[in-house]
């Protein structure tokens, strides 16, 4: 089965080529969408085959080289793929969620101009993402890394005739570029560092095998991992490079679900998991990652509390949940981080698709009533649970999952992260505290969203309120599948302490990922602190606390948005300054504009008007001016009379011959 590994990225590439080249001619939406969906579904089937073969296989690392890319001296770089438990899990998530979102898009994008363009980009994205995940060396990963960035740009700017969409696309691209710079710096430094020890390689397996050549905790490994982490903050929207993700909501909703929630933004987490051997050797970097992750989780959650745009709430929620994943990576809980990545892909994709379904319905109603209200503003919604029952139920399930109520998927993954943050050798109770507060905020803003959208009185314009339909099957089917996964997906990684409740259920996921992470964890002493490792009471206690915090958040949301609907207004009135700061995202965009963007513009303007116009153009124009002057002087030698030329020739011949005879 491993011989067919290359087919996984190959199918979406075929879909991209077909739709990209012929889509405009095909025109038929069913065929275009069908081809794109079929291609990613075929990838999913191949991924399943590989996944289940690997599950039973005792040998857990397989590489397939399909072609040589470059060969320089001892350095050999291939177009190669790597299948191990980590990448196997990722390809399942990418192709599985990808298939559902392709299917969803057929319904959601119906009637859009550029329908074929959308699916071509979507397929190209899947190809790039699979290259990123499957690449067996850092350069192939980088190709995918850049590819997903490109597709993200193209899809955010899908409605390119809207200025805000174009701006958001550019912002995403530029901010990602800063991160990519870090990635390249890390890669080159690592290449040089290993090379100076005699190992010239970019292959992940060889990097892992030779990581011990570098000094553990030394400067080199810290610099390398910090640079890689900068790359991760760009791609995965962490402080300080998170500002592009909320703006990226300008793209169509399926794009937000696939790229900006489930897959691309988790690339940074995946990359850290892929290079876990290196990261574990740099405790300072790990601490930085954990702190940045925790800070992002709290910070983004706080902004999410006050947003009114349904997709923006989800965007900040995504930033916040990514912060959790980074916190997990930072405290060495690699498998917990990947576990949260997986469950997050389920529930956040479902939430985004659910919000898409709501927006679709609202848009439809406004369109019918010839109104131009904002279909994404939650203040125009309310009471939609009766109009859109399937959307409502799946949305509610996912909201419960993200809030971490037992025994939905988010509960297991989030609690494992918090437990490691509290009790791990590299954890700290402050990290746990920040994570727990963020969890409470998450529960609050997510239920605020549910209450504002699906409960209470319907606040839609009366002319439109009766035209809101439940979405069609292509939209609701993915919702149901993802909703189910969001509900039960956590049982794959039940922590040991809870295993007893479910008939001694082992932690399948941790065991599955052990070949990738266990060695590193043992080597670097990353474990639960011994004095806490066997304290079941403590672990249960922590779980109880975090569930309690989530319940407080939910009750708070219920109290403010169902019980006393006038309370939020009073709250805003009494804490105007605080509310305005949160509502305006703590003015981070303005701060960045003032500090970085405007200064860059100033430098650019200087280089344009000062350097380019005066010096560069001056040299060019000066050269032309000199040549012109010389030419206008010399033109008098060209009289146009034949005899002058003949005379010049004769004189010339006489002079030359005379020189040879008499000279």
């Amino acid at each position, binding site marked *: 089965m491993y011989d067919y590994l290359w087919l996984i990225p190959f199918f979406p590439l075929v879909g991209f080529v077909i739709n990209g080249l012929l889509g405009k001619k095909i025109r038929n939406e069913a065929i275009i969408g069908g081809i794109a969906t079929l291609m990613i579904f075929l990838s999913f089937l191949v991924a399943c085959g590989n996944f289940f073969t690997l599950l039973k296989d005792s040998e857990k690392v397989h590489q397939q080289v399909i072609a040589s890319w470059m060969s320089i001296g001892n350095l050999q770089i291939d177009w190669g793929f790597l299948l191990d438990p980590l990448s196997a899990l990722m390809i399942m998530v990418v192709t599985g969620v990808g298939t559902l979102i392709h299917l969803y898009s057929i319904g959601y994008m119906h009637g859009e101009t550029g329908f074929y363009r959308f699916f071509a980009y979507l397929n190209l994205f899947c190809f790039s993402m699979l290259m990123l995940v499957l690449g067996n060396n850092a350069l192939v990963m980088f190709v995918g890394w850049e590819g997903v960035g490109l597709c993200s740009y193209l899809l955010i700017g899908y409605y390119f005739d809207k200025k805000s969409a174009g701006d958001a696309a550019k912002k995403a691209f530029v901010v990602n570029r800063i991160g990519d710079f870090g990635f390249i710096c890390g890669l080159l430094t690592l290449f040089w560092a290993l090379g100076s020890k005699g190992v010239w390689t970019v292959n992940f397996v060889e990097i892992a095998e030779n990581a011990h050549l570098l000094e553990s905790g030394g400067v080199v490994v810290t610099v390398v991992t910090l640079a890689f982490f900068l790359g991760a903050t760009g791609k995965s929207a962490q402080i300080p490079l998170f500002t592009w993700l909320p703006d990226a909501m300008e793209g169509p909703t399926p794009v937000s679900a696939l790229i900006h929630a489930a897959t691309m933004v988790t690339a940074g987490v995946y990359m850290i998991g892929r290079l876990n051997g290196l990261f574990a050797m740099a405790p300072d970097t790990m601490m930085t990652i954990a702190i940045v992750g925790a800070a992002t989780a709290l910070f983004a959650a706080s902004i999410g509390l006050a947003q009114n745009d349904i997709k923006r709430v989800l965007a900040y929620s995504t930033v916040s949940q990514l912060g959790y994943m980074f916190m997990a990576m930072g405290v060495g809980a690699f498998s917990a981080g990947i576990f949260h990545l997986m469950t997050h892909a389920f529930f956040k994709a479902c939430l985004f698709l659910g919000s898409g379904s709501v927006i679709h319905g609202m848009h439809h109603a406004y369109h019918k009533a010839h109104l131009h209200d904002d279909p994404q503003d939650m203040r125009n919604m309310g009471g939609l649970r009766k109009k859109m029952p399937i959307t409502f139920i799946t949305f509610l399930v996912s909201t419960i999952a993200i809030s971490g109520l037992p025994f939905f998927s988010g509960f297991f993954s989030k609690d494992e992260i918090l437990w490691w943050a509290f009790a791990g050798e590299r954890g700290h109770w402050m990290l746990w505290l920040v994570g727990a507060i963020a969890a409470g905020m998450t529960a609050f803003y997510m239920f605020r969203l549910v209450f504002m959208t699906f409960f209470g009185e319907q606040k839609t314009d009366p002319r439109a309120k009766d035209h809101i339909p439940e979405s069609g099957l292509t939209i609701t089917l993915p919702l149901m599948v993802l909703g189910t996964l969001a509900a039960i997906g956590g049982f794959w990684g039940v922590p040991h302490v809870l295993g007893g409740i479910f008939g001694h259920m082992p932690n399948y996921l941790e065991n599955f990922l052990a070949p990738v992470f266990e060695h590193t964890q043992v080597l670097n002493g990353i474990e639960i602190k011994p004095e806490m490792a066997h304290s079941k009471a403590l672990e249960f206690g922590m779980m109880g606390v975090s569930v309690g915090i989530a319940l407080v958040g939910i009750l708070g949301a219920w109290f403010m948005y169902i019980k006393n609907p006038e309370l939020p207004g009073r709250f805003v009135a009494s804490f105007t300054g605080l509310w305005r700061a949160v509502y305006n995202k703590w003015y981070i965009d303005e701060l960045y504009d003032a500090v970085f963007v405007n200064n860059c513009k100033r430098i650019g303007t200087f280089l344009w008007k000062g350097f380019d116009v005066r010096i560069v153009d001056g040299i060019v124009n000066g050269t032309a001016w000199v040549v012109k002057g010389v030419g206008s002087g010399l*033109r*008098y030698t*060209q*009289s*146009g*009379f*034949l*005899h002058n030329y*003949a*005379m010049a020739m*004769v004189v010339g011949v006489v002079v030359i011959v005379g020189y040879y005879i008499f000279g």
Partner: protein
Amino acid sequence: MITVYHYLILSAIIFSIGTFGVLTRKNAIVIFMCIELMLNSVNLTFIALSRHLQNMDGQIFVFFIMTVAAAEAAVGLALMIAFYRNRESIDSDDFNMLKW
């Protein structure tokens, strides 16, 4: 006794006449004829030296020059006719359309 020097002197005289004609005459046909004179003076030099040095290379060159001169005459006269059709003149002072 006519030696090679006589031939060379004759050839130099003919060449000078040709050069003088090219530089002074205005009628394009005459200029053309003067060029032929110059070519033929060169031919004469080649033949004389070929005989003097007992080497056939010079004679081969003469054949080439005659061939080229024939071709040149054909092209040159065609140009004259084309020019005459345009300007009703073959005066070399009228060949001035490319000057500044």
